[in-house]
């Protein structure tokens, strides 16, 4: 995971970006939750949701290549995490890998988990490809997340960039000073850098705090933007929720 992904949204105008960020966020959550809530074995409904995500990606003008590349990294992680299902889920043994028995139930569950994850991952990639961090932050505010959360994310976003820069510099400096390359050395180095990073983060936070006070800060980070919901956003969101609801209901009735 690279934090620089945060800033990789494209400033493309599309039917998706014309909805308010809050609607985009809620739509993503709806898709992810809908696919995650599908009962095991509901392959048809899963296919419907997957198709819906692909259509939205198209409408959002997210290139297929980008969608594929950006989902691959997280997908590999999900793949590794769910590989355990192959052998942990009991059932009729299908074949054996050494001492591990792979069951047919395990295989199906493994595949289904991957399917559900792909829908959620694609939805998330569409969100980040269309929505900038400041827009997301507005959505969080509009959704009434605690002020502590939105304010620390607001300040933390910039600090993250500054901090990563400083950590990279620390790492380079440490590397140039000691030639050791063993994994013990590496571990010790990482511990040292992490610790130094925390105290740097604090000093930076305190200096920022003073700079904020100098400009009249009194405990609230006021929001500059407010967005008004338009009919387009409401309509799009309602349609998405209906679609997911129908698919989900159908899947549960069928199973």
């Amino acid at each position, binding site marked *: 995971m690279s934090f620089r992904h945060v800033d990789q949204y494209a400033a493309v105008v599309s039917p998706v970006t014309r909805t308010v960020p809050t609607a985009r966020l809620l739509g993503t959550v709806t898709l992810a939750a809908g696919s995650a809530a599908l009962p095991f074995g509901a392959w048809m409904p899963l296919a419907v949701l997957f198709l819906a995500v692909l259509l939205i990606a198209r409408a959002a003008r997210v290139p297929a290549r980008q969608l594929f590349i950006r989902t691959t990294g997280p997908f590999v992680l999900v793949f590794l995490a769910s590989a355990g299902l192959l052998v942990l889920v009991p059932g009729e043994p299908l074949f054996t890998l050494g001492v591990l028995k792979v069951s047919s139930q395990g295989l199906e569950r493994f595949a289904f988990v991957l399917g559900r994850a792909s829908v959620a991952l694609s939805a998330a990639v569409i969100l980040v490809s269309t929505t900038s*961090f400041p827009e997301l932050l507005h959505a969080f505010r509009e959704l009434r997340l605690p002020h502590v959360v939105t304010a620390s994310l607001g300040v933390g976003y910039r600090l993250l960039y*500054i901090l990563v820069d400083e950590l990279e510099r620390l790492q380079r400096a440490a590397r140039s000073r000691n030639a050791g390359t063993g994994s013990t050395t590496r571990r010790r180095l990482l511990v040292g850098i992490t610790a130094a990073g925390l105290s740097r983060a604090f000093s930076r936070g305190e200096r920022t705090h*003073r*700079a904020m006070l100098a400009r009249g*800060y009194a405990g609230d980070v006021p929001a500059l933007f407010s967005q008004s919901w338009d009919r387009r956003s409401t309509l799009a969101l309602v349609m998405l929720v209906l679609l997911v609801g129908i698919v989900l209901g159908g899947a549960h009735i069928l199973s």
Partner: protein
Amino acid sequence: MEMLVVVSDLSYRYPDGTAALNGVSFAVAAGERVALLGPTGSGKSTLLQHLNGLLPATAGSVAIAGITVVPSTLRDVRRRVGLVFQDPNDQLFLPTLLEDVAFAPLNDGVPAHEAAHLARETLAELGLAGVEHRAAHHLSGGERRLAALATVLVSRPAVLVLDEPTGDLDARSRRRLVGLLLRREETLLVATHDLGIAESLCRRGVVLHEGRVVADAALGDLLVDRALLERYGLAAPLE
């Protein structure tokens, strides 16, 4: 003449015991441009933070436009004094430049749309129109300096206080900054060890050394006093 900034017998000791200021006195008239000179560790940044009430005086006092800096007057004082920190990264802490620049007016109770308008206007004045929705880490060092300046100019302060404003700038950005500052009306107090900048911006210089004012004179006179400059580490001795 009306004195806008009056520092009298100001002393400050950091909690760890470092005596950073030892009885500093000077005054700046409205419209004046003063360079605060001094080697590293002489107490320039410490002094500037007192002008804004960020540090409480251990002894002595500071008054801005006749208002003595005490906890109850901080709001009024901070509205009049625009302090730009040594590191612009400390000042630009929000996701977009526009939010950073609008921060001060919003804190002052200006409604959001008006604050946004003010912020846009200020950014445009400094030639930063078009980047207002960018994050500071996507700006060049020079643009970042200007943006930090914008975050205080937006409140139309009476005194502009700059700490080491040209630290990491190349010659061209430096010239651009000087040009911008010369066109402004605000009273200016610039802490620096860059004599070139001091000369192009100011007529008067105050030299600080170990927390004391050791010289306060016309900059032209200071800059030709080789012995003084060498004594206080402002110029390297000639071979």
